[in-house]
Every structure is written in structure tokens, then in C-alpha cells.
């Protein structure tokens, strides 16, 4: 019995190692738009940090990748998945923002020299945070995950074309972060929102709560048929967006009340809007932090 167990273990290890060079499972959510959905987990609790969604879009002449996951290894798997669909060159790697679960697969694409596209504030944030992120990624899973500079910065809106396939890139005001970039595929009316939209995963404020609500109000007015969030499943309607806006706007209201009532920051972080807990995964990990972010922003209103 023990021997059998050992054999199974060895076989399992071998197949695991084979998988390591294998591609990720992408789903075609609209014609030519492929999405890998990350685990809804903390980055250091998930295999190779694969917690964020990754998208690639295939045009007539080229491919664009939107976000590259958390590690060089994941980046290579994304590259392998793209090769299964097309031999067209990857001309653009777009980073929706600088958070570590979205950028550290970039290294896997450097050799093909695509344009690395990001919001105009991306470089500053990368300089401020990149080394800190790397210092937290010391395990073998993250080996080879280098910092890759953006080569093309978007100030407001620009369109890139993959060959009969225009992608509109929009750099928004301070929202989830201070440098969120979203991508709209005109052909299929697919909005690749990055972390401007969270589904199921508790939203995380690292920019401005009020700014984010304003950006989400704009997104809600947009005409899209497919919505790819930064975390959580792909959406075909606006219900998840509405739910997320309700959380953020309830948070804004509740934190303003806490400030008015002079409830201190620590107490507020432990008590404000706890009723929303059942609605979100990773609520305990991120909600208190959101209260602190909201409080320190709104107390200056």
C-alpha cells in the first residue's frame, strides 16, 4: 500500500512538472477574445500567484495580451496558450495597472519585443513599488519575474490596431489605483476592465474611492456586451458591476457617517459595513483596509 502511494506520488510529481511547461486554460468569451480566470485567493496562497484574470485578443495581423499574471512561469504558460490559437506575433502587452498579480509575467514576452503599454502614471508606480514587490516574491514559483518597463504610455485615450481589430485604450482618473488603463474591443463590444471591476472578489481600494465611483458610473453608461473583470468570472450584463458600485457607495456613506460621529479609525475599520461580508470573497482580507483607505481620503473632504 505504502509503495503504491509512493508510486502515485512520484507519478503525480512528474505530471505536475510536465504541467509546469504547459499552457493555461483560456476560454473564448467573444470571437477572438480569450480569458484565463485567476483563482479568487490571496496571491501568496495561490499556485504561482495566479489570482488575476489574463486576456488576449487576436486580430488579423497581431495579438495583444492584457495583463500577464504574477510570475515569469505564468507568463510562459500564457505564451504557450496563445501559440495554440495563433502564430501571429504579439505586438502589444498591455498592463492595466502595476499590482504584482498583473505584471510579473511580462518577462515571458520581452524576447519578442512587443510594445509594453500602460497608463501614463504606470512608470512612476513601477519605480515606487516594483522592488518592494520583488522583495516579497522570493520563492521558486516567482523565479525569473523581472521588472519590465512600459514602452508606450497612454495619457488619455488611444486606439491600437491588431489588423481589422481596433482596441480603444482609456487611461482613467484615480480609481482602483492612480494609473488604471482599460481596454475596449470594438469588434465584439468587450470591455477588459482590469481591476476597475471586481466580481465576487472583494474590491480593493489603492487609489481613490470617490474617483473610482465616478469611473464606474462612466463604465455603467458604456455599451458593452462582455465585461472582463480583473478578478472573478466574465460577465454578460451589468449586474455584477451594479453590485460592486453598491458596495463602494455604501462604504463611502458609512465611512462619512463614522467620520462625522468621530468614530476613530481603528474602531471604524473593525465595524463599518461588516454586513457586506457574506457578499464578497476575501472580505476579511481586504475590507478593513478599504475602510482605512476610505477614511483617510474622506476625512479631508
Amino acid at each position, binding site marked *: 500500500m505504502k509503495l503504491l502511494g509512493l508510486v502515485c506520488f512520484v507519478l503525480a510529481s512528474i505530471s505536475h512538472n510536465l504541467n509546469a511547461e504547459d499552457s493555461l486554460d483560456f476560454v473564448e468569451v467573444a470571437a477572438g477574445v480569450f480569458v484565463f480566470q485567476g483563482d479568487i485567493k490571496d496571491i501568496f496562497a495561490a499556485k504561482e500567484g495566479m489570482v488575476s484574470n489574463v486576456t488576449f485578443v487576436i486580430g488579423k495581423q497581431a495579438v495583444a495580451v492584457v495583463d500577464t499574471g504574477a510570475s515569469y512561469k505564468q507568463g510562459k504558460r500564457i505564451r504557450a496558450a496563445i501559440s495554440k490559437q495563433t502564430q501571429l506575433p504579439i505586438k502589444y502587452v498591455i498592463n492595466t495597472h502595476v499590482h504584482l498579480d498583473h505584471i510579473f509575467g511580462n518577462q515571458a514576452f520581452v524576447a519578442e519585443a512587443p510594445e509594453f503599454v500602460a497608463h501614463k502614471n504606470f*512608470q*512612476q*508606480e513601477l*519605480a*515606487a*513599488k516594483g*522592488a*518592494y514587490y520583488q*522583495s*516579497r516574491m*522570493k520563492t521558486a514559483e516567482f523565479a525569473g519575474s523581472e521588472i519590465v518597463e512600459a514602452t508606450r504610455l497612454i495619457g488619455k485615450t488611444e486606439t491600437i490596431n491588431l489588423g481589422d481589430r481596433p482596441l480603444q485604450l482609456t487611461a482613467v482618473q*484615480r480609481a482602483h*489605483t*492612480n494609473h488604471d488603463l482599460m481596454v475596449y474591443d470594438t469588434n465584439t463590444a468587450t470591455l477588459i476592465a482590469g481591476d476597475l471591476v471586481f466580481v465576487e472578489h472583494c474590491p480593493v481600494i*489603492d*487609489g*481613490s474611492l470617490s474617483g473610482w465611483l465616478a469611473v464606474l458610473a462612466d463604465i455603467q453608461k458604456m455599451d458593452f456586451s462582455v465585461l472582463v473583470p480583473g478578478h472573478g468570472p466574465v460577465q454578460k450584463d451589468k449586474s455584477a458591476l451594479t453590485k460592486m458600485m453598491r458596495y463602494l457607495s455604501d462604504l463611502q456613506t458609512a465611512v462619512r457617517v463614522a467620520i462625522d460621529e*468621530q468614530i*476613530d*479609525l*481603528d474602531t471604524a*475599520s473593525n465595524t463599518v459595513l461588516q454586513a457586506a461580508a457574506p457578499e464578497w470573497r476575501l472580505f476579511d482580507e481586504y475590507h*478593513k*483596509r478599504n475602510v*482605512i*483607505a476610505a477614511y*483617510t*481620503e474622506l*476625512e*479631508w473632504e
Partner: protein
Amino acid sequence: MKSNNMLRQISLTLCTAVLLVSGLHAGDAAAQQSKRDNWPIIRANLFAADREIYSDDTISLITPKRAENAAIVPISVIANIKQTTDLYISKIYLVVDENPSPVVGVFNLSPNNGLASLSTRIRVNAYSDIRAIAETSDGKLHMAVNFVKASGGCSAPAGSNNEEAIKRRGKMKLRQQQHGNLVQMQLLISHPNYSGLQIEQISRHWIPADYVNQIQVSFDNDAVIAFTGGISISENPSIGFNFKPEKQGTLLAEVKDSQGREYSQSWPLAVQ
């Protein structure tokens, strides 16, 4: 001035130690490390060796078990004795053992406070013991210690609202809330409070330290609370304290930063 030199000296002593530790990171190793090394050095720099430090109930310390955002960790010191002219808490030292500059600062208090309880928000760079040491007017020292799990507070990149903090630099807000004969106050000062450990986002040079190092609050020329401190106070410093007013009057806050800028603002005291 003496205390500023002292702070700097301790910072330098500990910088090397912390740099070595920082390679270990947020795991248990750092937690293990934290408990031991720095406090004897800090203690030796702050207090004469023959001064006893009592672990009694004079003060208690409230900290979150885990810092949700290491750059903004709310802490409160609760005074369990009243401020009377016979016996009062005259100073409260705040220390974060594992921070590059472990002495957060020193608060000066007086019987005017009624109660010496205070609160602020600090940066916590690693899993660390946080200490509050109260000096009572009889010269005795009393300490409360909590362990906090956090990492990256001092070098964690400044928040995204930083531009706002710079635009508003020096602007202050005072919140007042009456509790019996005490007025509970919170003074907010808009200031980026650069620690000197953050990297400038465009040039990638270290941002020179630029932080609030002195706060004095007075009421019609009577001292209410004073703070002298270092880089471990969070961006947009916040200080909560008590005041026991005997009359109507004006509260004045005077603030200096490490670049020599001076700010002041005053408010009428709202007493019913």
C-alpha cells in the same frame, strides 16, 4: 534639540540591523527576529540603565492585531490614571522596535489634559513589538507592549493621494467632542511625511526625509500637548488627545517639519 540628536543616533544604530532583517520578510523568521534584538539598544539610548521600567496598569496600549495597511496603523494609549497636579503623566514615548527609526516620538503632557490618553497613526516596518512608555511626574516609568503583525510600512510606497497631501501641505483640521468635563480632540495635519526610505517615482532617487517633527498645541498660551518625533508617523499626521478646559478660549496648533517649514492654525474651543 537633544532629543532630535538622540533620535538620529538610535536610527543609525538600528538601520544596519533592520537592513539585515529585511531580507527575511514577512514570514515567521521575521517574527522570531523581532522579539529580541532592538529593545535593549533603544532602551539604553532613551533611559539611564538604573531607571526601572514598571509593567503596571498606569497605561494600556490598543493596537490592531494585524496591521491592515502597514503605512497607517492606528494606535491608542489609554491612561488609567487621571491627570492631577499631584500625580500626572508628563511624557509618553512611542517605540516600534523594528522600525528603521524606532522612536516614533515623545509626547509632553500636563494636568491640563485631564486624561493623558492619546492616539495616532504610525508606520510599522515589520512584525514588531510596539511600546508605549509613560513617565509620571514622580519620575517613574511605566510601559505597555503589544506585538503587531505588519510589514513594509516605512518603505511601502506612499499612498496614491500623495499629490493631494502635497497640495494641502500644512493645512490642518481639528475635531472636538465633549465627554463630561473633557474635550476629546483630533488634530489632523496634511503633510506627505516622507520617511526618507521611499523612492522618488520619476528620478528613482530616494526621497529626502521631509516630515513633521514638532507639534505644539496650546490654549491661550498654556501648553496642552507637544510632540517631537521622527519618520514613523503616517502621512497626514493625526494626533488624538484630551483637554480639560477651565474657560472659553482659543486653541493654537504650531507645526514644524524637518525642512524648516512652519505652519499654524487656531480654533475657538467649543465648550458647552
